[in-house]
């Protein structure tokens, strides 16, 4: 794609706007219309580094400042402004705190205060501007404000099998391990494949045959597929070591 052909229409688009703005300024010299022009021709760079830095200096966000509602030496307060970053595991979640931990009691007190004050307006001064603290969020998100659940395979134990079922499963597997495969038995008895493998292992020669089949399959793999499989294994190890 030619970049220039894209750029030209953009500049053409800007040019009449600039004329418009100039006309607006000339017709009615109000400061509000002049302010509207600024974003279009704003420049981040200045002649010197010092000027650039000075122009980019911003006042801190309100959540960093103490509340000005009361007179200055009103009372000590804590400015709670949680960072926009991933929570570290050093911060123990609420339910992981033991019963006698003072943090647990403090969070409980905080939550009780929040639930009492929430129905009315929020008088809490400092943390009101950024209520994204985990505790406050967890307390506030009581009614369905949690993020959507993910869909993934989850273990749902049923405990539906009795001894007769397992005997039957073993009999079928020993009779004809080819037709009564692990998957088929799991479907029939409505249990997991792991359970079938544990409860009704196949006869030794069948396992050997399966292993030989797998070996033959692996021999047909080319170098790319073999390397990809090895890499996947290595990646999983790195993930579990926390290096990824």
């Amino acid at each position: 794609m030619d970049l220039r052909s894209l750029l030209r229409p953009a500049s053409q688009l800007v040019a009449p706007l600039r004329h418009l703005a100039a006309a607006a300024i000339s017709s009615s010299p109000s400061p509000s219309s002049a302010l509207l022009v600024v974003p279009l021709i704003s420049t981040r760079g200045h002649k010197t580094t010092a000027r650039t830095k000075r122009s980019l200096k911003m006042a801190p966000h309100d959540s960093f400042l103490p509340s000005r509602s009361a007179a200055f030496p009103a009372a000590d307060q804590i400015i709670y402004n949680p960072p926009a970053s991933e929570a570290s595991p050093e911060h123990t979640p609420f339910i992981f705190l033991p019963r006698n931990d003072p943090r647990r009691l403090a969070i409980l007190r905080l939550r009780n205060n929040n639930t009492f004050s929430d129905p009315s307006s929020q008088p809490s001064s400092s943390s009101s501007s950024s209520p994204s603290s985990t505790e406050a969020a967890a307390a506030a998100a009581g009614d369905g404000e949690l993020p959507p659940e993910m869909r993934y395979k989850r273990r749902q134990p049923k405990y539906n099998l009795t001894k007769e079922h397992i005997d039957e499963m073993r009999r079928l597997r020993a009779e004809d391990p080819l037709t009564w495969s692990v998957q088929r038995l799991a479907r029939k008895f409505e249990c997991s494949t792991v359970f079938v493998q544990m409860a009704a292992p196949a006869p030794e020669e069948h396992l050997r045959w399966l292993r030989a089949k797998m070996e033959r399959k692996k021999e047909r793999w080319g170098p790319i597929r073999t390397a990809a499989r090895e890499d996947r294994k290595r990646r999983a190890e790195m993930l579990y070591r926390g290096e990824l």
Partner: protein
Amino acid sequence: MKRIRPSRWSGQLLQARRGAGIPAARTPLCLAVRCQSTSSVPASDSSTLDSSSSASPPPAPPLPAPSFDRAPQSAKLAALHARLSLSKKIPLQTLARALVTPSADANPNFNNANLAYLGSTIINFHVYEYLVCKWPRLPMAILYEALRAYAGDESLQQIARRWGVEAAAAPGEEVDPGLLQWKAGESNVVNTRWGYIRSEAAKGKAWRRGLSSRVVLDSDFGDQVSSSSSSSSSSSASESERLEYNTLQSEAFGSVVQAVIGAIYTHCGRDEAKAFVKSHILSRELDPSRLFQFKLPTRELAMLCAREGFEPPVARLESETGRLSRTPVYVVGIYSGKEKLGEGTGASLDVARRKACMTSLKAWYLYSPGNKVRVPSDMMEPGAKPWTAPHIDIGEII
């Protein structure tokens, strides 16, 4: 933890028995010359003995390590003593003895083996009690590695090097006593590790060692105690040689730190030794969250929640970007009921979920009652406040 009573041993270990432990190859004359230990015999005694023995005509064979009566003349030793700000109660001779390893002088009356053993028990005791009180939920395997990170030979070697301890090119009588006397390649007969040599070890790798048996049978770091330190199964001969040299070196340097702490305990007492361990070993930085390696984090977290009676963990997608692009980012949080346990980011939903599980598990394991935990040995100070029991966890997730 093993029950150790270093206060009982220190006297016996450091008391030099005349003629005890001296190899038969030594001549009686040599025995007469060197029959003093740094701790038992005063220095005036040694000078008289030396003068009497020097009169005898046959020249003595050279000593394996510098004689301790040269210690007061060594500028290096005095500088090391001042650098560590050791108490005046610790004589330079003891410091000189702490620098002689068993690989240089096999005679336990003149090397640092006993002091190092005493020191290692003190170090391990203080590090263990600190770790157990600071992170009460650490699994045993992580606890072993954390102990090794604080008090293992590699870490102690770093400490010794930071003290300015240098090794002599080769140990010998003429060497400055302020240098570390060690040489590689010598079989270390002195066993400085506490533990049992297992009979099952002959079965090799097929035999599985459980963690709970490690607590009882193996060394302080959970390593197997073997009768002979033979390292094999390395890629090449030179590689294994280099590895062995490094381990021997770190053992030698580590024994200096242990021996100095043993000497402080012997001459100055328990409190001084504890303060020294605290300022030199426990002051180092360790991030225990780097020590974990998980196997099935999702399963482990589900088991944890079931054991503790929490609601089963559920993964929730908190935010995502670029699902159809080459580099998507998913942020997944793990929730138990309404409580968030942890979160993780990853390039696929599965990776993000597993990372979030690992973060949640780390959040469980790395629970700490605070930065200023009290340890049991704090109670030995005079006028200590009454003891409040630390948090004790019910154990690992099986």
